[in-house]
């Protein structure tokens, strides 16, 4: 962990405890269009891993396959020591692997509290639900201020907070974020990334899919770069930041401003 990283996002201690998510030779796609051509990934426990890549390279497809929205055609997805590639999506949530959607994927006609309660849909006890609600409001006090408003009235940053909060409601072991910085102002992105770091410090594992390569590499411990459905480059995020091929393809050829 670099000094810069902890300076921007707050203190972080990396704990090593094996791999939580393992994706082996994953082949998948939509309809008859194959997007993933044998992707391999590993996510260590309590780490932040960034999955980077340009448009249409298969970043979101990996997330959709891992969360069960699309089936994997070949290859395995292992979560917490259990193969999950054939489980229906709602059971994967029950295992503790939750995908956090982009901010626009909320339920706009419901209030913020109702949206969050939906996040804890699999919880059995009401006590647990209200505890988790408190926890989320603690992460994002802004949501507490707006808890009775319809989600449709929230700003872009608040929507993204709502989505992350909804993902945290079901006591997950790992969350996978789909472009949390999309269409947000830099200040808000920084705020959200700080919270992601805080979530990791509280014991969760985080996988971030990002187009904002520089910010994602600053936040993450480890990075994967995907190209044409296979993992092209991988390595420590600090190394990736100075990697020539990554720089050329995704950082615009200029030296990373760290």
């Amino acid at each position, binding site marked *: 962990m670099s000094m810069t990283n902890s300076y921007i996002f707050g203190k972080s201690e990396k704990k090593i405890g094996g791999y939580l998510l393992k994706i082996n030779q994953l082949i998948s796609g939509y309809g008859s269009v194959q997007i993933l051509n044998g992707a391999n990934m590993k996510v260590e426990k309590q780490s932040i891993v960034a999955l980077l890549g340009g448009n249409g390279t298969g970043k979101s497809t990996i997330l959709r396959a891992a969360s069960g929205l699309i089936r994997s055609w070949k290859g395995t997805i292992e979560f917490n020591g259990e193969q999950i590639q054939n489980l229906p999506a*709602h059971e994967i949530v029950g295992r503790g692997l939750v995908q956090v959607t982009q901010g626009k994927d909320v339920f*706009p006609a419901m209030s913020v509290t109702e949206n969050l309660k939906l996040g804890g849909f699999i919880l059995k006890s009401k006590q647990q639900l209200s505890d988790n609600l408190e926890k989320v409001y603690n992460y994002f006090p802004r949501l507490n201020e707006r808890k009775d408003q319809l989600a449709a009235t929230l700003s872009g940053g608040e929507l993204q907070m709502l989505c992350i909060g909804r993902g945290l409601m079901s006591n997950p072991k790992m969350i996978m974020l789909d472009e949390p910085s999309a269409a947000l102002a830099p200040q808000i992105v920084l705020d959200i990334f700080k919270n992601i770091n805080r979530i990791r410090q509280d014991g969760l594992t985080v996988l971030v899919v990002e187009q904002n390569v520089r910010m994602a590499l600053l936040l993450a411990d480890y990075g994967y770069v995907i190209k044409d459905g296979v993992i092209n480059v991988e390595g420590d995020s600090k190394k990736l930041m100075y990697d020539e091929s990554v720089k050329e393809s995704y950082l615009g050829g200029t030296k990373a401003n760290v």
Partner: protein
Amino acid sequence: MFNKLRIGKKGENIIFGTFVLLYIGWCVNSPDMNIESLKSVLTIGLSVGIIYGLVALGISLIYTGLDVVNFSHGEFFMIGAFAGLTMFNLLGNQDWIFNIFPDAYGWIIYVVCLFTAFVSMGLFGVFIERVFLRPLTKKGGGYTVAGMGIIICGFGLSVVLINVAYLIWNPVAKPFPAELGLPMEIGGLFLPITYIWMIVVGLSVAAGLWFFLNKTKMGLGIRAVAYSKDVSNLVGINVPLYISIIFGIACAIAGIGGTLVGPTYQVVVFMGYIILMKAFAAAVVGGFGNLPGAIVGGFTVGIFETASSFYISGSHKDLYAFLLMIVVLMIKPTGFFGVQVKMKA
């Protein structure tokens, strides 16, 4: 991007209001117009309207939940009526019920019939959805639309269900002699007490559905599934199960509607078709896919139809519902309450 309850543009409302005023003027000019006849028109109109509303509620519920327009919904209404009637015939010759409750005998049997129709149609709807619709929607890739196939399937299902009912119960119209007490006098007309009973039970069912959807956890899940299948999946809702539940609830409500009209009219194999068409009119008038709109649309179609056949001409009774639907589609294409606009990512 987000749901919006659209009340309508100003111009639309003015033109529509002019039509309404013209129509009221026409009715007031009629020689039959007096306060007595108005009372009975309202009673009959509301009671018929709530039936249209209940079926329209099911159609709208299936439309919002599954993105499917269910053309076989009238048949669930008809089979629901037969389920109620079958239960009625089973209980009708049981003396012990009469011995225990000599006063409320007819009412108790009738409530049991309503409950039977509700439960049996709910289970039957789940069965139909699982066995006949699910393979089609799966081919289409999701849990919902499979293009034109699902609409043809609805029509086909309607024909099959009518013919199965024909085989079981034969085409003769059957009376449903529920003993609910003496007719009441409303506005000089003696109306069966079932008219009031229809309004009360129908409104209770609608209110119950509102409560279920807005105040329970399962209702929250249903609203989520209706908005987005993918996001519902990601919060851990068992979407296939919930789609079956939505279809089952819609069919159960239609079944209650069938048993409600049974004692007033008769139970016959072909009763589903015309109800389906008028419920469509009601759903369009209220705003397709809007649940409170379905009930309001049902009342509007019911009152318009009854008033027109009283004051204008009684020989074209079935025409008026569709006339109203055409006028609404011309002037206010989104219906009274508009459609909840949703955009999918």
